[in-house]
Structure formats: C-alpha cells, structure tokens
C-alpha cells in the first residue's frame, strides 16, 4: 500500500539518527563517515526550506494550469466538475510518477500534487454531481466523506501527516449533513475519531521501534486532540462557526446531561492522554496531553459560568512554571538524572536546534501580544495592541 519501500524509509531514518548522534559526539567522525556509506538511500530528499518553496510553486503552477484551462475553455458548471475530476486523476498520477520515477521523498513537489488531487476531487464531486440539482444533504455528505477517505489514502500511500489532518477536518463537516442536533454532531465526530484511535493504537503496536512509529505517534496525538476538541463545547470547532455568526454562545442548546457529561470528560481526558503518552514514551501524545490539560483549565470557568479574573493567566503561568521546575528537579535528583526511564537532560542535537530557532521566533512574536499599548488620548490605562514588539512599540499612537 505504501509507495516507499520499508527498507528505503528505514535507511533514511538511520541516516538521520546517525547525523544526530555524530553531532552530539556519540560517534567519531570516522565512524560517522563509514556508517554513512551504509545508509545511502535511493530516495531523493531536500531540506525543509527548499521543500516548502517547492511545495508552494507546485501549488501555484497546478492551480494556474487549472485556472488557465477554465479561462480558455469556459465550460459549464457540470463540465467544470468533470474537468476537476480529470485534474484530480492527473495530479494523483503525477504524484505517483514523481515518487516512482524521480524517487522524490518529502520533496515538496509530490506532496503538492497529492494535496491538489484531494482538493480537485472534492471540488469535482461537488460540481459534477450536486451543482444545479435539488439539495440532498445525505447525498451531499459524500463530498466530505470521499474527501476524508481519499485524504486517508494519501496519508497511507505517501505518509504525509497533514493528509491525515485533512481527513479529520473533512470528518468535522460530515455530521452537519446527517443531523441538525448539535449534541449528535459532537458525538458523531468524537465517535469517528475514537474509532480511528482504536485502529491506530492497534496498528502501531507492531511498529514500536521502526520508521512508522513516529507517523503513528503523530496521528494518535491528532486523534486525541480531535476527541478532546469535539467534546469541549467551549472550544469545539463545531461550535465556532455558530458563535461567530450569531455572536452568542450555543451551549444552552445542549441538553444538561450532555453538557455536564462533556465537562466531566474534558477533565478526564487530559490525565488519560498524559498517562498513555508517558507509558508509551510518546512525545506527541505527551504534548497533546499537556495542551488539553491547559485547555481544560482555560475553559473550565466558561463551562461553569463563572466570571474570568484578570489574574487567572498569572495563576496558570505560576502553575505551568511550577510543574516544569518540579518535574525537572524531581528527575534531576534521580540516579544519573533519570527516573522511570525519563530525563530532563538534552540528548539530541535536534532539540538544541529547535530551542535556538524557537527562542528567536518566540522572542520576536511574544512582545506583540503581551506588551501594553499606551493610550495617549485617554486617562484610562488599557493594555494590548502593541504592534511591533518591544515595549508596546508602534501600537496606535
């Protein structure tokens, strides 16, 4: 099913690990050079920046080619749908060829072609079968359903994590066609994600230490996050369009038992996710566990109908910092700085690179959101709105 052979992907993974270990001094230069010769892959890769740029320009060229075709031919709406379907097939075939012939791997080009095929397929089905015909919600649900299935196929075939994310987003649109009950919509979405989670958990146990482990880990993390967001009525993406449109909170639309069950669930899920992540030593699942824990703290007061206080973020900050310091100290006091197989020490050069890049970017971004913007025309002192960083630089003066 997968377009890349397991040996090719294992070789790439081994090469990446070798580079990391050599950078950390776990291997000598001579060892690295010798072992590097043994990890030569037939796949063609590139660095992240060129990958991104290649992705963007492939998207531009494919979209423009489609636009040019329609500008020249001027077809009817249903013919447009048929052509979209043809474009989807062409893009998918091109992605397959790019991998099988040019041996591209995370190269941007084959990724963009695969992504375009998903977009064209969904648009094609919508235009070809449902434009101009009477509205039939059950039938039209085929559009997101096929989008989700095809995205899943792309994920399985090419191993692109964001294709799985696209499938999850397609699923969010599905229940809207089937029922008008918001509670049922939440349950359906959560049910889909939970089913996916069970399948992924069963599948990944066979790939504990191989190249697929990271991919399954990320997907499992997405599914946990999806379940949480589907259950948290104060954050759910299902509710956001309604809230934006009407400007009101739709929580009152939910039956009380459902509402309070979801409140219980948002408190139960973080410890479950964290426990799962810690037991599996799974970085992504641990991260999602931490994120949903913070989201639970943030959304608890709105759930209970309690007023927010200005010092709530301070308390959250103290809690987060306290937890981080406590865990670090607790781990540090273990023999060799290790307890239960965990350490707070840095073991990978990749972590350092992430830290360096992250600290520079976050340092530039943070002041914009937290520093005060002075109000020269008013005696009232209000914060927020700094636009260029520093001490609230260049807000509206």
């Amino acid at each position: 099913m997968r377009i890349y052979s397991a040996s090719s992907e294992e070789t790439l993974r081994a090469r990446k690990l070798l580079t990391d270990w050599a950078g950390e001094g776990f291997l000598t230069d001579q060892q690295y050079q010798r072992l590097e010769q043994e990890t030569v892959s037939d796949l063609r890769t590139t660095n992240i920046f060129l990958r991104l740029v290649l992705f963007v320009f492939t998207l531009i060229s494919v979209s423009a080619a489609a636009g040019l075709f329609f500008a020249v031919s001027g077809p009817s709406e249903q013919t447009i749908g048929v052509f979209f379907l043809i474009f989807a097939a062409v893009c998918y075939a091109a992605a397959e060829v790019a991998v099988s012939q040019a041996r591209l791997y995370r190269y941007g080009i084959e990724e963009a072609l695969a992504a375009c095929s998903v977009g064209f397929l969904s648009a094609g089905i919508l235009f070809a079968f449902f434009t101009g015909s009477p509205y039939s919600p059950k039938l039209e649900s085929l559009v997101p359903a096929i989008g989700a299935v095809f995205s899943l196929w792309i994920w399985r075939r090419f191993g692109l994590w964001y294709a799985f994310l696209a499938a999850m987003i397609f699923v969010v649109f599905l229940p809207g066609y089937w029922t008008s009950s918001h509670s049922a919509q939440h349950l359906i979405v959560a049910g889909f994600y939970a089913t996916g989670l069970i399948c992924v958990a069963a599948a990944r146990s066979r790939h504990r230490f191989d190249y697929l482990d990271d991919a399954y880990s990320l997907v499992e993390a997405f599914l946990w996050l999806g379940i949480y967001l589907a259950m948290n009525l104060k954050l759910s993406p299902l509710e956001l369009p309604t809230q934006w449109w009407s400007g009101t909170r739709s929580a009152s639309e939910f039956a009380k038992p459902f509402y309070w069950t979801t409140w219980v669930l948002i408190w139960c899920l973080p410890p479950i996710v964290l426990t799962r992540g810690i037991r599996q030593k799974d970085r992504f699942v641990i991260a999602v566990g931490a994120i949903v824990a913070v989201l639970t703290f943030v959304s608890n007061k709105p759930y209970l109908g309690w007023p927010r206080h200005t010092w709530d973020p301070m308390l959250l900050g103290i809690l987060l910092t306290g937890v981080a310091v406590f865990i670090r100290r607790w781990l540090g006091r273990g023999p060799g700085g290790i307890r239960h197989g965990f350490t707070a020490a840095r073991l990978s050069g990749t972590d350092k690179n992430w830290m360096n890049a992250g600290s520079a970017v976050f340092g530039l971004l943070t002041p914009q959101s937290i520093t005060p913007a002075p109000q020269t025309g008013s005696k009232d002192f209000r914060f927020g709105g700094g636009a260029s960083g520093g001490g609230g630089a260049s807000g509206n003066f």
Partner: protein
Amino acid sequence: MNILARLEHWKEQGAISGEQHAHLAGLSRGEPFSIFLELNLLLYAGVVAFVVGLGWTVSTWSRQLGDIVVLTVLTGILAACSWYCFFRAPAWSPAETPAPSPIFDYVLYLGSLVWCVELAYLENRFHVLSGQWDLYLLVSAGLFFFVAYRFDNRFVLSLALSSLAGWFGLTISHWPSHQDAEYRQYALLYCLLVGVGGALLERRGLKSHFFSTYLNVVANVLFLALLSGVFERQGYGLWFFALVIACGASLAWGLARRQFAFVAYAAVYGYVGVSSIFLRSVNDNTAVMTYFVVTAIAMLVGLVQVARRFGRPA
C-alpha cells in the same frame, strides 16, 4: 532492517563499540526518554501566561490597587529577576555560554517582559517623558542588547531587535505625514544598522552565534521594505533593481553558507516582486494564468536544480 537491528549489525562488524551500541540502542528505544524540549516549552508558556495576567491585572485594577502597590510589585519582580540573573550568571565570555541553570533564561525573559510592563505603566500614569515613547523604546532596546550579550540569551536579543524596530517606527509616527516612503527609508536604515552591527559583532567574535538571528530579521525587513517600493505605482524602478540585487545576494549567501532559508527568501520575495511588475498592467485572465503557469514551472525547474546541487542529499 530497523535501527536496532542495524546497530546490532554495526556492532558485529566492529564499526561501533559495545558501549556505543548499548548507549545508542537505548536512545533508539527511548531509554532514557528526554523531555528537555517539553519542559522548556512549559516554562516559556508559564512565563508568557504570567506576564499576560500581570499586564491585564495592572491595567484593570491599577486605580483600586494604587500606584505604590503596582509599582512595588512590578519593581519587586524586576529586582528579584535581576538579582537572580546577576547572582547566578557565570563570568562573561564572548563565546556561546550555556545557561547556568535550566530556568535561568526564563527568569531573564520574565524580567525583560516585566520591564516593558513597568515602563508602560510609568508613562501612562505619570507621563514622565510626555508621550515620548520612542525614547523608552530606544532605552529598552539598548538595555535588552546589553542583557542579551551579557547573559547570552536569544529571547532577549529578539526583544532588543523588535524594540529597536519599534523605535524606528515610532519616531516616524511623530512626523506630520505618514507616507510609506518614509517608513521604507527607516526600514532600510534599520536593516543597515542591524546588519552592519551584527556583522561587526560577529567579526569581533562577540556571540557569533547570534548572527543568524540578525541576518534573518534583516533579510525579512529588507525584502518587505523593498517589496513595498516595488508595489508603488510610480518610481518603482529603483526599488525593483534593489530587490533583484537583494535576491541575488540572499541566494548567493544561502548557497555559499548552506543556509537555505535565504534561498527561500530570494525565491519567494523575488517572485512576488517580479510578478507585481509584470502583471501590473495585465487585465486578461488568460495572460495572468499563462504567466503563473510558465513562471512557476520555471521556478520549480530552477529550484530543483538548486536542490540537486546544493540541497541535502538523501
């Protein structure tokens, strides 16, 4: 063959020692499992959440709390952070210096952000400098540069660079007319100052590892400033010429130093600039689409060549 089997194979070949095998196999199995990155993210989120709450509380409750209480609390936090940093910091070195403790960088960052909050409070309540915010920003930028170099902290370096950018932006906002052209000139002056300053410091070996931060900030500000000139209806020729030169320089730098972010900047900003020139008088959809098809494919071919020659091989 997964990585564990490979390590076993390498050990049997004698390519790695038994100790190395045990260590690397352990790392591959996640034994021990490092949560270094996660703890750092938690600390960062904690500091940011705390300062957000502090700013929100001060702005909402300043009248009820009174100036003395607010200033005492803010000054107390600032003093505690400063004391911790100066007390715990190792002797200064021009080279990259590891933080003396895991929370050191975050205490320093907290102090820097609280400084911003306190300055804003002082000015808004007492109008010490009669609305001369640019002076606050200049002083803050200077302080942050000093702190970043003294304690080797990228967070604070970024704060310094954004404060300096704010000072340039704010100075021009005092002028009677706010024309894009003036902003553009100040952006270029900012790029010149930061770029030359960063290069000089790097040449002198003062925290050379900061240079990439300077370059990335300068490159983005410079390209945005040049693009805003290219987008002008009149007198854009010189800006376009400057954009082409900047793209060439960025491309050459990126390829020579293998810093492919600069190749990406050159490709994207250059493409946007060239496209705006070519398409500004074109109204025909077919011509526009044809342009994008042809040029995007040309860019793809060029970038693939770059990736094949210079990009990381598999």
